[in-house]
């Protein structure tokens, strides 16, 4: 089939069964947008900022398990999208981001809206391409989708000069992808797996340490079975929330800087860390030399570079987590005796009793944690939950009752404020039956607030719950604790009328100061099924606790802070 480069992009997206893309047109990508106009196979959602388009594609990808697609133009269109690429790179989200570029003849001349896009995206993508010949497009696009979704997933950027989108060449998408330099290891070494399970059998205080890789590998069912069969307790990272479900008796909680006392103490006292799809991030480990100090480490990951990067693995296993978990299950059935760990479980139960995750309702204003718990009670499994970044994000991770994988979508690695609202929009596209909730702060929400327009236009009723403390709360908390209360540039007393702001775009706004008002607002927003801002005035100086100060040891937690 002889078609233009622009038509090839459309044909490739159709061949990849793409149903929705998020984007923003501009000069260099116009040929492709012209072809988008002519087709009916997939939907294009016009975000109102390129960064939001990429975050929406991320939300879509995480909720659906499929590759998210975003399309942008050259120059500023591309640079706006970089934060999204970096976010997806840090959290291993499969994306294909297609950008326009100035024509080949103008590359290198500082042309209008020219920037070295692949030069910029190189360090924040899994791979990238500058297409110099339309004849290469079918292969490159097919490789892009393949690379994005296989191995450790990640974003792939394809930069296409305008003249290449006009060039006519042969389109053949049937050739299987063959990259001789890229062959991810998917099956774990079975002897190594056996050794690891033997170590589990011999351990007295083993602990599952579950990371976001469990979700990417769609391995939650297998891991749930493995946890149940072995009777070994588990902690989840921020990215793994929802893996075991809040009702699972063996789930301790989240660990790390704002993990629960029990989770962090369990990690400090375990004699065998069973790390599955987790990468020993500094926000998880605290001081490395004190992390799980007396434990052997099993580390299963699809990415060999993650293994022994920070914590040396005694049992390194490279492979797809689903495959490895199935093997571990089979071997565990024969040799692991769950009774063995009863004393260890008692120890953990005591940790939990000593300092459970909690908060005090001791102020006239609402406590943000109550709001999150309340949404959990009212919507629970019916909602998918995204967040922005900051205190509200940590409270949501601590207090929302997550019951399934892919219910919880947050910016973990990069910590991108402005992620939540557009991501929630992508989630709503992927899973329209469920309520799409974005917990956000009065700081974060303004970073992609223009998406009110997109969500109203496309009837994607995201409910944004703004936990409004008139502060950049997390930075304020650090300033209170470590900078002698010098609240430098974190006071957000001056802020918009969020109700009117939502209304100005055609959404609906609520201002809430009491529990009754909150219940009524949430109920109304869910029933009306419209884009909503619920502006909840919460106690200004609430802190996220427990807290492991940066660089501190996990077992040295600050459990509360008393205002002096």
């Amino acid at each position, binding site marked *: 089939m002889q078609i233009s480069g622009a038509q090839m992009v459309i044909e490739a997206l159709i061949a990849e069964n793409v149903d929705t893309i998020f984007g923003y047109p501009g000069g260099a990508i116009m040929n492709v947008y012209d072809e988008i106009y002519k087709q009916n196979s997939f939907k294009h959602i016009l975000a109102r900022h390129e960064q939001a388009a990429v975050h929406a594609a991320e939300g879509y990808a995480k909720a659906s398990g499929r590759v998210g697609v975003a399309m942008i133009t050259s120059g500023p269109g591309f640079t706006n999208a970089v934060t999204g690429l970096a976010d997806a790179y840090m959290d291993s989200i499969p994306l294909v981001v297609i950008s326009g570029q100035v024509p080949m003849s103008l590359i290198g001349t500082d042309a209008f809206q020219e920037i070295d896009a692949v030069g910029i995206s190189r360090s924040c993508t*899994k791979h990238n391409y500058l297409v110099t010949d339309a004849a290469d497009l079918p292969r490159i696009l097919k490789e892009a989708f393949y690379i994005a979704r296989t191995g450790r997933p990640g974003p792939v950027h394809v930069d296409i000069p305008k003249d290449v989108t006009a060039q006519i060449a042969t389109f053949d998408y049937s050739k299987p992808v063959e990259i001789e*330099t890229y062959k991810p290891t998917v099956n774990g070494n079975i002897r190594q797996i056996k050794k690891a399970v033997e170590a589990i059998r011999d351990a007295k205080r083993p602990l599952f340490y579950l990371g976001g890789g469990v979700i990417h590998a769609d391995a939650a069912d297998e891991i749930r079975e493995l946890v149940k069969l072995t009777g070994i307790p588990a902690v989840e990272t921020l990215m793994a929330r929802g893996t075991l479900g809040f009702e699972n008796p063996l789930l301790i909680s989240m660990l790390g800087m704002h993990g629960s006392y029990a989770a962090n103490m369990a990690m400090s006292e375990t004699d065998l860390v069973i790390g599955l799809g987790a990468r020993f991030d500094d926000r998880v480990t605290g001081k490395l030399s004190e992390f799980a100090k007396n434990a052997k480490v099993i580390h299963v990951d699809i990415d*060999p*570079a993650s293994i*022994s*990067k920070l914590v040396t693995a005694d049992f390194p296993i490279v492979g797809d987590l689903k495959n490895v978990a199935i093997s571990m299950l089979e071997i565990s059935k024969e040799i692991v005796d769950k009774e063995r760990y009863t004393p260890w479980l008692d120890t953990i139960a005591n940790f939990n009793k000593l300092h459970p995750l909690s908060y005090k309702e001791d102020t006239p204003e609402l406590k943000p944690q109550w709001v999150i718990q309340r949404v959990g009670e009212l919507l629970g499994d019916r909602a998918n939950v995204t967040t922005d970044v900051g205190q509200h994000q940590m409270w949501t991770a601590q207090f929302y009752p997550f019951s399934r994988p892919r219910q919880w979508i947050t910016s973990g690695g990069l910590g991108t404020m402005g992620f939540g609202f557009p991501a929630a929009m992508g989630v709503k596209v992927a899973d329209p039956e469920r309520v799409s909730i974005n917990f956000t702060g009065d700081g974060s929400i303004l970073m992609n607030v223009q998406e009110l327009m997109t969500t109203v236009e496309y009837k994607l009723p995201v409910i944004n719950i703004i936990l409004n403390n008139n502060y950049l709360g997390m930075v304020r908390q650090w300033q209170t604790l470590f900078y002698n209360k010098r609240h430098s540039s974190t006071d957000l007393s001056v802020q918009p009328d969020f109700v009117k702001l939502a209304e100005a775009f055609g959404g609906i706004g609520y201002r809430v100061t009491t529990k009754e008002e909150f219940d009524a607002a949430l109920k109304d927003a869910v029933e009306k099924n419209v884009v909503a801002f619920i502006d909840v005035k919460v106690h200004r100086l609430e802190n996220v606790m427990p807290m492991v100060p940066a660089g501190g040891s996990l077992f040295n937690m600050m459990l509360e802070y008393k205002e002096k």
Partner: protein
Amino acid sequence: MEEAARRVISVIVINEASVLSRITDLFSGRGYNITSLTVAPIPESRYSRLTIVTSGSVRVMEQITKQLHKLIPVLKVIEHADLVEKEMALVKFPITETLSEISALCSAYNGSIVNVSEELIIAMVADEPKRVDYFLAAAKRFHPREIVRSGAVALER
């Protein structure tokens, strides 16, 4: 902290646009050292071979190797243990220096005088990097005007 030792690695990559930047970006982005780097296409293949001289602890080297492997166009990473390693140097001397003495020094380091013009002598040596250091130290007394080193190339024995 474990001592950072000198290491030599070879990387076989698909010979395509921007592949070198991928490698150097990786080193700069993750804070690894490059002491020297040479690259040229492998004859009759679609690959190029890089020889990178770097330094780091065993742990850092393991990360460098793994991170290089992660790059899509990288076919193979060879961490050399038992290797033959050579480097070339070109040195300009003023013609006022004694030709025969320079020539004798060069031949001790596997080299020779490769060009003589009205004002300058250019000498070449090709030897192990450490020995190139010695040569350059010895050559100092002939007042070298300009020195260029090629960076090391290596093959596993």
